[in-house]
């Protein structure tokens, strides 16, 4: 997709409803990041199109209707937490108003209200990622695209952050597409899990997660949960075995 001969994604049919939390899971190199970037308008597909509530991704970007969170928080080290969060509002704000109050509110929402004047080098990894979240949320986007946002964190922080993220989402409902390679994470957090095959990525199947919300840690040991995890695992194994091109998505159960 970069002009190199690498085909990261084959045909993919993907849809998410407003307010839905969708996870995309698949083996490494399976095009998950590519899919996310195409949805967000950071990459152009070689064929096909993307619509976000009817608009093209580029237009949605301009109106700050899409928020991104990447695996590396990519905070600007010379700016404070507050200045970093504000960044997404300030850049190219020709078409959107600046809501200064939003910065303070979101910093509070992610639990960093004491640290507004701190610099990234003074924060732990988990805290930096929280700043990245706040930054993505400050423009109040309708869609949040996250690419393994907890991937660089240690196990303990990662687990607790999952629940914090869920709490934030429940307070500020958005359409979320989360790319992850943790099955537990996908099942625990989403309404629906989309499984991709290995490269070139195709949709192997989709699983609806009907578990009740709010979801808590104890749920991880519930039999329904574990059954869903198994089903995801099956689909993953299936996707790993597929070699040749054929049709589109397999029907999920």
């Amino acid at each position: 997709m970069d002009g190199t001969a690498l085909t990261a994604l084959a045909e993919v049919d993907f849809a998410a409803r407003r307010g839905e939390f969708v996870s995309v899971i698949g083996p490494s190199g399976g095009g998950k990041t590519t899919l996310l970037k195409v949805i967000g308008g950071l990459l152009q597909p070689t064929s096909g199109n993307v619509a976000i509530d009817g608009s093209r991704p580029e237009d949605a970007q301009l109106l700050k209707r899409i928020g991104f969170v990447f695996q590396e928080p990519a905070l600007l080290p010379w700016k404070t937490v507050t200045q970093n969060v504000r960044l997404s509002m300030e850049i190219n704000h020709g078409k959107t108003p600046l809501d200064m109050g939003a910065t303070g509110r979101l910093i509070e929402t992610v639990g960093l209200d004491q640290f507004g004047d701190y610099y990234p080098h003074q924060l732990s990894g988990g805290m930096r990622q929280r700043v990245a979240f706040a930054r993505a949320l400050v423009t109040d986007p309708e869609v949040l695209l996250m690419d393994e946002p907890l991937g660089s964190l240690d196990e303990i922080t990662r687990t607790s952050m999952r629940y914090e993220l869920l709490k934030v989402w429940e307070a500020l409902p958005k359409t979320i597409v989360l790319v992850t390679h943790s099955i537990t994470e996908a099942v625990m957090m989403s309404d629906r899990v989309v499984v991709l095959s290995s490269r070139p990525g195709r949709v192997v199947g989709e699983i609806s997660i009907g578990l009740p919300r709010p979801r808590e840690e104890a749920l991880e040991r519930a039999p329904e949960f574990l059954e869903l995890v198994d089903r995801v695992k099956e689909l993953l194994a299936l996707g790993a075995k597929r070699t040749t091109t054929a049709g589109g998505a397999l029907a999920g159960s």
Partner: protein
Amino acid sequence: MERSARQQRAEHLPGHEPGVTRAASGRLRLSIRLAALGYLVPAAMAALVLMVGWELWVRLADVPVYIVPGPLKVLRRLFGDVGFFAGHGATTLMEAGAGFLLGSLVAVIAATLMAHSRLLERILLPLAVVVKVTPIVAIAPLFVIWFGFGSAPKILIAAIITFFPVMVNANVGLRAVDPGSLDLFKSLHASKTEILLKLRAPSSLPYLFAAFRIAVPLSVIGAVVGEWFTGDQGLGSVIIVAHNDLDTPTLFAAIFSLAIIGVSLTLATFYVEKRTLFWHNSFLA
């Protein structure tokens, strides 16, 4: 290096947990002061040892003053006429400073243009190399002819010397942005100007300062060399007149003055760098 009692106490304060340190000011100022001392004291000791050795050599080997004067003679000459050396030093400093600013400004502009156009880079970079390798001795007389006998040719020479290292580093620095941050800016539909001003420019600062560390003393040399060719002011003039008169105590006193200027400028650059780049890896280790 031994930590002061104050620093040790600071580490037991609440809020000093790993991963969460207290905000910048107090500890930073202390660390800058300690760092400055850490640089000055060993250097001063080394200088002292050198001077003592030098004085002993001159006396024991009976070296005539017109070959090499002993440091005591030089210091007596220097401190016996501080106004003289300070005045000329101020001239050289002014020329070097103006040249450094001019050269840096042009260099940053050139680098910014080059960062946006590979074609321009391929044109300007070889030109800059040609300028760099041209010996000052060849162009200085031309500068005197074109720009007169005052400060202008010296400022220009200092500017030319400053130009190359600053331009090269600025060029690298402007391109060396964190790809994640670049993605972020692109995802926010940032304009090229916004990317330049808000991302590339700050990212390039560590590289710029690295170049400044080189260019600052070089600009002093440039001013001095310019002063050899014309004019009556500046430590370069003092040096060439003293050389002509075989007045080695004055010659060496002028060199000492240059050394003082050089060290002061380097410390000043370091201080500015540390305050501006407090966020950079090089200061956090």
